[in-house]
C-alpha cells in the first residue's frame, strides 16, 4: 500500500513537472518579448539582463506609432484579413452547402479535387502567381492579395465547413420547407444557426492564416503604404537592426490580435482539428 502511494505521488510529480516544462518553453519567449518592449534602450542591453523592467516605459510603443509606418501596416492587415475572411466564408459556405445538399454528377470528384489542393504549399503557387498577376496588371493591389489569400484558404475552409454541414440533419430543412418556407429561408433560419459554431471557428482560422501570411504579401505588394504587418515588420527589422526594444514592441502589437482570436477559438480547436483544420 505504502509503495503504491509513493509511486502514485512520483507519477503525479512527473506529470506536473512535464506540464511546467511545457508551459515554460512556450511562454518564456513571449514573456521575454513583453519585458524587452517595456525597457528603455540602456536597459535592453544591460548585463545581467533584468527580467522585470526596472524603468518600465511606453517609449518603444510611442516611437513605433510615431516614427514608423506601423499603424498603416496594422490597418492594412485588418482590412486585408477582414476582406479575405468575408469572401472566403461566403464562397465556402455556398460551396459546402452545395457539396452536402445537392446531388449532381461530379460532386464527389470536386470534393476530392479540393482535398488535393489542400496539400499545395504556397511556394508552388506564388511564382507563377507573381508572373500572372503582372500580366493582368493587378500587382501591388489589395484586391490581388485578398483573392490570393482567399483561394489559398478555400480548400481547407470548404473541407471544414463540409464536415460541419454534414452533421446537420437534412430532415430539419426539409421539415421547414414542407411547412412552406422557401429554401433560402430554410437555410437562413435552420441551417446557418446550427452551423454557427463551425462558421465562427472557420472564419477565425481563416483570419489567423491571413493575418500571419508573409509570402503572398511579399510577392504581390511592393508599395510601403500597402504592406501588411508581417512584411512591414520584416522591413522595420532591417532598418532598425539593433533597436530591439522597438522591434519587440512591434512583436507585442502583432501578437495581441492573434492572442485575442486564439482565446475565442480555443474551445473549438479540438473539434475542428478532427476535421483537419489548421495548415502551416
Amino acid at each position: 500500500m505504502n509503495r503504491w502511494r509513493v509511486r502514485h505521488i512520483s507519477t503525479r510529480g512527473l506529470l506536473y513537472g512535464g506540464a511546467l516544462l511545457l508551459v515554460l518553453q512556450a511562454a518564456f519567449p513571449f514573456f521575454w518579448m513583453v519585458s524587452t518592449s517595456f525597457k528603455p534602450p540602456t536597459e535592453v542591453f544591460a548585463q545581467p539582463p533584468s527580467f522585470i523592467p526596472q524603468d518600465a516605459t511606453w517609449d518603444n510603443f510611442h516611437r513605433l506609432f510615431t516614427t514608423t509606418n506601423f499603424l498603416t501596416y496594422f490597418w492594412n492587415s485588418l482590412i486585408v484579413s477582414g476582406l479575405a475572411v468575408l469572401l472566403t466564408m461566403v464562397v465556402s459556405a455556398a460551396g459546402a452547402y452545395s457539396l452536402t445538399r445537392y446531388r449532381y454528377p461530379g460532386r464527389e470528384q470536386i470534393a476530392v479535387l479540393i482535398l488535393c489542393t489542400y496539400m499545395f504549399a504556397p511556394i508552388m503557387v506564388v511564382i507563377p502567381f507573381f508572373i500572372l498577376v503582372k500580366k493582368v496588371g493587378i500587382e501591388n493591389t489589395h484586391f490581388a492579395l485578398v483573392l490570393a489569400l482567399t483561394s489559398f484558404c478555400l480548400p481547407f475552409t470548404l473541407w471544414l465547413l463540409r464536415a460541419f454541414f454534414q452533421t446537420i440533419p437534412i430532415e430539419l430543412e426539409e421539415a421547414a420547407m414542407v411547412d412552406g418556407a422557401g429554401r433560402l429561408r430554410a437555410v437562413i433560419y435552420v441551417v446557418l444557426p446550427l452551423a454557427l459554431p463551425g462558421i465562427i471557428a472557420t472564419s477565425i482560422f481563416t483570419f489567423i492564416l491571413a493575418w500571419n501570411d508573409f509570402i503572398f504579401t511579399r510577392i504581390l505588394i511592393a508599395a510601403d503604404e500597402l504592406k501588411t504587418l508581417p512584411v512591414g515588420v520584416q522591413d522595420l527589422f532591417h532598418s532598425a537592426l539593433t533597436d530591439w526594444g522597438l522591434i519587440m514592441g512591434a512583436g507585442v502589437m502583432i501578437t495581441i490580435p492573434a492572442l485575442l482570436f486564439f482565446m475565442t477559438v480555443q474551445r473549438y480547436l479540438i473539434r475542428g482539428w478532427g476535421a483537419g483544420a489548421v495548415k502551416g
Partner: protein
Amino acid sequence: MPSNQAPPVGRSRRQMVMGLLTIAPALLLILGLILYPVTYSIWLSLLEKHSFFPQERFIGLENFVYLWSDSEFWTSFWLGVVYSFWTILFQLILGVAAALVLNESFVGRGLVRGIVLFPYMIPTIVAVILWKWLLNDTYGVVNYWLLALGIVRDPISFLGTEHIMLSTIVMSVWQFFPFVLLSVLARLQTIPEELYEAAKVDGATPVRRFLHITLPQIRGILFVVILLRSIWMFTKFDTVWLMGEGAGAGRYIRTLPVYAYMRTLTYYQAGLGAAIAVIMFAILIVSTVIYFGLFREEADIG
C-alpha cells in the same frame, strides 16, 4: 448526410443547376488561382523568362539540365532534407510526449493546453524576431545563461554559419510541434479508458501500455500527421527565409523553397525558379505515392 431515396426527375434537374451554381464560385477560384498557376508553372519551367519583363523564349528542358549540374541546387536539396528530417523527428517526439502529458487530468489542464498551442498561432515573423533576440550573440538571454552557468566560456554565435541550421531547427520545432500535439491529443481522447484499466489489472508497466495500447491506436493519425508535416516542412518558406534571407549565414539554411524564390526574385530567372518549384512538386508526389505504398495498412486506418 443526404437522404437515400432518389429525388423526382423534375427536381433532379433543378438540384443539378442549383448545386453547380453554389459550388461555382469556389470551384472557379480554386481552378483559376491555384490549379491554373500550378499548371502554368510547368509551362514557365520550359521558358527562359525574366521575372519583370514580358520577353520569353521557349528552351525546352534546358532549365532542368542546368539544375542537374548546378551544385547550389543539390546543396539546397540536401539542406532541405536535413531541415525536414530533424524538424519532423523532434516535432513527433515532443508532440506525442506532450499529448500524453495533456491527456492526463490535472489542475489547470485547459490553461496549459492553451499556452502550449499558442506558438503555432502566431505569425512566423514574430517567432523569428523572438528567437533572433533570445539567441543574439552579444545580448541574448540564452548566451547569458550559458555563460553564467559556466557551460561555455565564450558566447555562441547561434545565427552564424556553424549553428544557424541548428537554431532554425530548434525554432521550427518550437513553432510547429503543437500541431502534432493537438492532432494526437484529439485521437488519444477517443481511446476507451477500459483498455488501460484491463492492462493495469494485468500488471502492464506504463511503457508496455504505451507500446501495446496507445501506439496502435494513434498509428492512423500519426500516418496523416507525418504526411502533412513532411509536405509542409519540405516546402516551408517563410520561417527559413526570415531566419537567413538566403545570404551570409543564410546560405547554410538555403533550402529548395528559398532557392526557388531567390532564382525568381533575386536573379530574376522566373523560368529557373518555376523549374525548381516543379521539381519540388514532383518529389512530393513521388514520395507521397511511395509513402502510401509502404504504409498501406495505416493508410486504411487513417
